[in-house]
């Protein structure tokens, strides 16, 4: 049944110095699903993302993407697998010396041989797809609002139509209405492009609105995975607090 598993993490241990962040962690992301990853701040959600995409070298363990081992790749092999995913970093990480459109063109320049004018048009298309106006293209990231920057970062992540999308707290710091718009956008793009999405978030509303399955990180491992209804019945105290605390209940009320 490995056929429909997009990302398979096995026995992953990561550490910074003596500080172990993950200890023999296992995780599966199925093809075509949106997996929400939650957990208290500092449990290593961002580090897990970095370990999967090869930005953080694990101490032990393997990461397989579409049945291909991507741990410890270098050079051309790494470049090749980088085509498989787009990443939207926690704070956008747009290049501040490039315009928004040029930001989206960076991956195209690096990985394809498209002619320049077509690249520009495609970049504009991606920006429209992420819900930005054509007028945003020539602006610099510093001239955009937080929400627009996140959309621009999403457009850059989608530049090469990767089958997998990593989002690190895409709605953090956005107002609820913009955040809801972003949730819808992710959901729509996911179904239009049949993406597999790895979504790190703290936002219960985002989880309810977008995720097919949720993985809870804690105590250096994945302590539970499953659809949201299943997790509500889990008796881990943190999960109970998370879903049945005041904010979790509000989200549940909004859902029904």
């Amino acid at each position, binding site marked *: 049944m490995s056929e429909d598993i997009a990302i398979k993490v096995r026995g992953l241990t990561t550490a910074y110095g003596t500080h172990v962040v993950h200890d023999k962690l296992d995780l599966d992301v199925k093809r075509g699903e949106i997996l929400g990853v939650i957990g208290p701040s500092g449990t290593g959600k961002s580090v897990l993302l970095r370990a999967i995409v090869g930005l953080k070298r694990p101490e032990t363990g393997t990461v397989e993407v579409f049945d291909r081992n991507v741990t410890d790749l270098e050079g051309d092999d790494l470049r090749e697998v980088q085509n498989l995913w787009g990443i939207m970093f926690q704070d956008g990480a747009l290049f*501040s*010396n490039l315009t928004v459109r040029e930001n989206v063109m960076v991956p195209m320049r690096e990985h*394809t041989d*498209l*002619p320049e004018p077509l690249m520009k048009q495609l970049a504009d*298309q991606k920006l*429209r797809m992420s819900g930005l106006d054509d007028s945003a293209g020539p602006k610099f990231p*510093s001239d955009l609002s937080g929400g627009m920057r996140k959309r621009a970062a999403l457009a850059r992540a989608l530049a090469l139509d990767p089958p997998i999308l990593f989002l690190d707290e895409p709605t953090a710091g956005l107002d609820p209405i913009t955040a809801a718009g972003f949730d819808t956008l992710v959901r729509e793009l996911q179904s239009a*492009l049949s993406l597999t999405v790895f979504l790190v978030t703290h936002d219960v509303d985002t989880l309810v609105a977008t995720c097919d399955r949720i993985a809870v990180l804690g105590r250096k491992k994945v302590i539970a995975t499953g659809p949201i209804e299943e997790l509500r019945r889990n008796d881990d105290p943190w999960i109970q607090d998370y879903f049945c605390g005041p904010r979790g209940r509000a989200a549940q009320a909004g859902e029904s």
Partner: protein
Amino acid sequence: MPDRPEYELSTDASRGRLSVSGDWTVHTIGKISEQLAAEDTSGFEGLEVDCAQLGRLDTAGAFIIDRFACRSGGGTVKPVNASEQATALLKQAAELRPERDDEQNKKEFGVVDLLERTGRATMHFIDETVETLSFLGETIMAMAHIVTRPSKMRWTALVSVMEDSGLDAVPIVAFLSFFVGMVVAFIGATTLSEFGATIFTVELVGIAILREFGVILTAIILAGRTNSAFTAQIGAMRMRQEVDAMTTLGLNPMDVLVVPRAFAMLIMTPVLTLIAILFGVGGGAFVSWLALDINPTVFMNRLQSYVPIENFWVGMSKAPVFGLVVALIGCRQGLMVGGSVQSLGQSTTKSVVQALFSIIVIDALFAVFYLELGI
């Protein structure tokens, strides 16, 4: 390995029919997009896209097919034999069409355009000058304000800037002046020896260093060293919105950032100039001693009796002005930095260029001024 994308174009009455095959993805469409753009589409009133042989399709592929359809009149794409996903992608591409096709936004390089750019540059230069002068006024007001109320002065900042841009610049200023003094003496020695008047090297070194080189060298070193540091420090604070935070907390960036720097430069530039003059004359005396056998004591005696002391005061009088210019331009460009790394770099470059330019121009004005005064 992806299949190369290919297509066949046929007409069927007035309707075009595009049969596509292979993989149409962002990695493969590079060549074919140009080919497709070169196709003649006159006489088409709509396009049918046959996707029976189509391999993989992504948004980039859908985009160029849709763009082709736009050109083929009507702008409607009718996919035939297409998978659900391909249909959805083509539909999405059609929904996201740009409002207008700006394929040709070339830059103009005509004569009119040259004139326009020249005009803009001139206006920009005038604006810059006016704004710098108004910033000068603003700073002087703020400084006067502080002088009347010394308790509001940021003493720590003042002393720290004095150390960073004054004390730490002493070695480089001394070193360079010494060498320039040596060079002036050498040139004087070789030129004057033709007339057998090598003793005038003393006057040459004395007047050149006291009146011009001491202060100009100091100012240029400060423009390169301190001015750019001011711009970078304040600019980095602007980039991280620290200056805005300061303002909201009731601190005036003028008082906190600009005034201490201006005062520090006002105090330190004359000190540095004095050091430059001492070392410059020292360099001259050193060469005179080695190359011309003019004993340092003789050198000093001649300097005292034949080089009027006014030269020294002329040189020193320019020092605070140059110091203020460096501080002002550095701070102003720093405060003008926007949010991007790019603008920080631009501002730093601009501030050094403007400072050097102003120093030379002001020095020329001083020369005319003192000439008229007969000093």
